[in-house]
């Protein structure tokens, strides 16, 4: 089973829930798909045993063959190619890597070259397998790296995906193909606003979903009212407590230190299984 952990608003506790869930259940694999800010491994004191660079492909022009016809630039929907009188200019940060320019070039003057965008890292801790991507700073495209992280999914395990915040393409790429999406929110107006946006996206994707209310006790009750109206199950509440916040700040999964929480997370996982029908 693949469970994605997501939230519209940042800082609601995605990583906290993903990590605590992963350390509480059997045979888990945790994939941190928040490649812009991968934080899950910080909470696990992980020893990285494997690291490899990840590339995407961007066009490169063989100037001996190019006759500056401009077909490539005309084709490119993302304005990543500009043909000026003597030269073809490529803007890698705009290139989505569709390969269309190479396909269109009548002189076969375009080859696609590797361009490093980040790293894929892996490690194991107490039978928990962790994979994460780390985007190079200054590199705008997170999605190709997320795809690489997701290629490591081992379906024989209980897979947990830690998604990036928001509802844009990096979040969609992460959640796509999961059996269930757990939305983490906080009971505040910002939390509710961003939860609603996330629910819309997941409903469009026909993705089964449930909610975890983190920092319960702060703010107001509107998140609960909304979930009740929409018949969205609230599967867990994590209270706002100073000791939980302190453990997080030190990078310690709180379920390892506070009695009863391991069972709570196991129950959460069982509830998800039941909702998915697995």
């Amino acid at each position, binding site marked *: 089973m693949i469970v994605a952990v997501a939230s519209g608003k940042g800082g609601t506790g995605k990583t906290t829930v993903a990590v605590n869930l992963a350390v509480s259940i059997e045979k888990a694999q945790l994939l941190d798909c928040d490649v812009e800010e991968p934080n899950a491994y910080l*909470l696990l004191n992980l020893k990285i045993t494997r690291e490899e660079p990840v590339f995407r492909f961007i066009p490169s022009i063989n100037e001996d063959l190019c006759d500056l016809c401009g077909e490539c630039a005309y084709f490119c929907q993302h304005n990543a190619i500009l043909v000026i009188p003597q030269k073809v200019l490529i803007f890698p940060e705009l290139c989505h890597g569709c*390969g269309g320019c190479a396909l269109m070039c009548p002189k076969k003057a375009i080859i696609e070259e590797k361009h490093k965008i980040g790293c894929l890292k892996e490690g194991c801790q107490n039978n928990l397998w962790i994979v994460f991507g780390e985007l190079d700073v200054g590199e*705008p495209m997170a999605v190709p790296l997320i795809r690489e992280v997701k290629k490591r999914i081992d379906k024989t395990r209980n897979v947990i995906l830690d998604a990036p915040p928001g509802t844009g393409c990096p979040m*969609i790429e992460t959640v*796509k193909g999961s059996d269930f999406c757990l939305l983490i929110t906080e009971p505040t107006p910002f939390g509710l606003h961003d939860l609603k946006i996330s629910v819309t996206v997941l409903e469009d994707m026909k993705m089964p979903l449930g909610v975890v209310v983190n920092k319960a006790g702060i703010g107001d009750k509107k998140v609960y009212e909304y979930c009740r109206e929409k018949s969205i199950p609230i599967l867990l509440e994590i209270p706002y407590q100073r000791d939980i916040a302190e453990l*997080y*700040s*030190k990078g310690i999964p709180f379920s390892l230190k506070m009695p009863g929480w391991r069972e709570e997370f196991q129950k959460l996982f069982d509830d998800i299984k039941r909702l998915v029908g697995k």
Partner: protein
Amino acid sequence: MKQITVLSGKGGTGKTTITAAFAVLAKKALIADCDVDAPDLHMLLHPEILEKREFKGSKLAVIDEAKCVKCGACKEKCRFDAITQILIVDPLSCEGCGVCVVVCPTNAITLTERVSGYAYISKTKYGFMTHALLKPGESNSGKLVSLIRQNAKVLAEKEKSNLIIIDGPPGIGCPVIASVTGADAGLVVTEPTLSGIHDLERAIQLLRHFNVKPFVCVNMYDVNMDNTEKISRFCRENGIEVVGRIPFNSIVTEAMVNGKTIIEYSPQCDVAKEISSVWNKLCEELVLR
């Protein structure tokens, strides 16, 4: 004209709370909410929308069933897995590149423009605000951020405003890059947690990469004093000024629940005072007064 971007790397550290407070303190600045995935600033500043425009940031492949001969060439060449087994376009995966259009032997596929979101120009009590809403699941948020900033610039010139305050999205990817490029300063709002520190370092690298002067503000600094000290040391070693240490106070959430900025809700509280002090320091740095 000066531009300052509030960013954080890690989400939920208090960017929007601080940006909203700045909007009140600055009085006549232009406010640009560039967190197009999760724009929350409007809940504190209550903008009155003056203008709404469609944002067409991407295209979508459409297959004409009548012409399609089910050869599968489109599926084979698509690098985004946007064409399903039964040869239907998945709009969530389609990046509108047009490769399928050219490989289709029967010209059954066309690219159509899709409305990816809306850009707004609005008025608040504290000046004009430009913002947007990206339709859920849409790509090209970087382009939309650029549009919001362009709208802000045009309006600032018209209104003779000398400052644009930008509320940035979390992360360091495409919309964040679009939010910081060309800004005069970047205020990184962090929190004293391991994740906060890790993401702060990456946000600083990003600002330096794009030649934007970094400043740091530690929010909820008293949650972990050791980590706050680590942040201070890191900043000292890297020649970055820590312009503020904001204490934890539940009054921030209370203000949010009431739809007010902290400056309006409780001008005398420790949080409001510290944010005002951060604001004054930034103004001095940017020579705004």
